[in-house]
């Protein structure tokens, strides 16, 4: 089961390594992890996507996270309405104007943006859920040669009134 865990924690040195250490120490799986300070600079917000075998494992994982002294709040996002987004930057090589057109068209369809151009290289930016990014990468690789791919990992937030605050 894929699950998204949002964590609010003290923005202190060592906090990230404690979270990462916890996952490896307890043999939990991390598919992606993003972290950054929030508008309150003393706090960091982390989004972890993980694959758990059952609810008990998820619950144990969340309790273990909460047990870390630096951690203020832990919540799971997929159990209710939420928004998740990932950023993709991909650099592709194109030769010939026809290929270039194809890249541009694909980009438009997916609502991506071309953020850098050299003679043979396009750098494209795209946000969305993971499956959309996967589909884009597959499509674009037909029209061009992929040189480099970087993905941010998932950021998530609950819809509606729910909020994770300090």
């Amino acid at each position: 089961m894929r699950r998204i865990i949002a964590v609010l924690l003290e923005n202190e040195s060592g906090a990230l390594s404690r979270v990462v250490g916890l996952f490896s120490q307890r043999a939990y799986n991390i598919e992606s992890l993003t972290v950054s300070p929030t508008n309150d600079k003393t706090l960091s917000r982390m989004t972890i996507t993980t694959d758990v075998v059952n609810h008990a494992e998820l619950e144990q994982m969340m309790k273990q996270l909460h047990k870390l002294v630096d951690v203020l709040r832990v919540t799971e996002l997929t159990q209710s309405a939420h928004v998740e987004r990932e950023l993709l930057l991909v650099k592709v090589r194109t030769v010939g104007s026809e290929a270039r057109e194809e890249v541009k068209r694909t980009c438009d369809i997916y609502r991506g943006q071309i953020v850098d151009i050299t003679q043979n290289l396009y750098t494209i930016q795209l946000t969305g859920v993971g499956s959309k990014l996967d589909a884009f990468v597959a499509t674009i690789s037909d029209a061009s040669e992929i040189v480099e791919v970087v993905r941010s990992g998932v950021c998530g937030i609950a819809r509606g009134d729910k909020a994770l605050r300090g």
Partner: protein
Amino acid sequence: MEMLSGAEMVVRSLQDEGIEHIFGYPGGSVLDIYDAIFQSDKIEHYLVRHEQAAVHMADAYSRATGKVGCVLVTAGPGATNCITGIATAYMDSIPLVVLSGQVPTFWIGDDAFQETDMIGVSRPIVKHSFSCRTAEEIPMAIKKAFYIASTGRPGPVVIELPKDVQNPLNKFPYEYPENISLRSYNPTLSGHKGQIKRAVAALVNARKPVLYVGGGAIIANASKQVLELAEKLNLPVTNTLMGLGAFPGEHKQFIGMLGMHGTYEANNSMHNADLIFSCGARFDDRVTNNVDKFCPNAKIMHIDIDPTSISKNIHADLPIVGSVEVVLQQMLDLIEETQATNDSESINAWWDQINEWRAKDCLAYKTSDTHIKPQQVIQCLYKVTKGDAIVTSDVGQHQMVAAQYYPFKEPRQWINSGGAGTMGFGLPAAMGCKIAFPDRPVVCVTGDGSIQMNIQELSTCMQYNIPLVILLLNNRSLGMVKQWQKMFYGGRQSHSYMDSVPDFVKLSEAYNHIGIKVDKIEELEPALIRAFELKDRVVFIDVAIDPEEHVYPMQIKSGSMEDMYLSKTEKTDA
């Protein structure tokens, strides 16, 4: 405001925290702190012979007193020598503050002399850690460290102190924080009201209940509540290895330790119970045996201050997060208020069943004309000390025999490394206890393998005149390893012999202690009497015991709790 250097702040903060004893070993990166200690008349420092022992001493000091143990060591090897000690304390939830030196901040990351990333190395085995990058941070870091170490589920906290931060030439205003609160850390103490109600209902309705009491009850000082609840409802009580003493070992409702080397009656009661009420015990694999076969008919009720311990190994039908002491008191108050009682008829029937299991007398053993049995040694120790000694132990057969044959009366009387099973714990642990309670008899029950893992501390005992009794159950082998090899490896004793054990009497004498060798059972009691009469000397009694003796009962691997070997020739029918 008073102006102090970083080094002075460390010592003053410890003083202001009420620390009287500290265990440690100096080195380049903590010389400024040692200089400040030299000038303090409030803190007594004990110089060990190996840093691991300093941590075990502080750990046992804490186990015996309930206070936080404190350690001071230098960077690099001084710090890494503490790792086994810290892991030992972590596994048993013992509050410690370990202060370690570090290279100056401007060298961190440069592989400087004696630079080890102690924060990183210790991370998986600490409750939390701090690295002070300025002197002004020191008082708050120390305050937080003691608070975090001692509250909630206790555990070790490491503070790293780079050398430049301690600099005696730079003075800063000093004030020790009075109160502290951390927005990200608020342990729950009292139980949820609804859960308390449900717990009382489940408990009084149970027909075959068992109170399963662990180390958490000792840490929470909940023995009084455990006793009151057990007596009020006439409940059978079993203690884990870590819980021994939480309920009096000679009480008629005590059914013995449970688990791998638990009694026949305790393991059978668990297996056949309809309600298991865990008070500060964490369903460790050394207790449950095969979790898939664990107590098939029991409803599980579990109090624990650490939510992660609940439903980790065994699903709890009725979880209660909170301190064992507070939650049990809440339950007792509710029982009092509602005059709740259980059905004495079904409880009596349950006791009839338990007494049948008890009649098996699973701890009976055969004596021999030629060999001293380890069980006899512990029983004799009990007799001579009238059951009043603080007993520390190492790890192995001798540990299990001590746990089985010395019925502990009180909490904090049995000091052993249960979670980590650290050989070498016993001697420094006994020293820590004796320093905490100079007027109480303290004995270290040890093995010929274990004692050699921290034997150098005999020198520390000599320096500070820490008079304790070392009772060595000498089987000339790594007995517990040998037992497994005999039982499960076709008798192939791969490296479990101690081909050359030293002459422990001479060794003790070399450290100016008294050594006594006991080869015959008649010599044992006089030796023990003499040892406890000599109140100002370390007495090392080396008892030659039967090297072929095994520890029984012993649970059968992958079986349920009731599946046990009862002797070399007898086992329960599965």
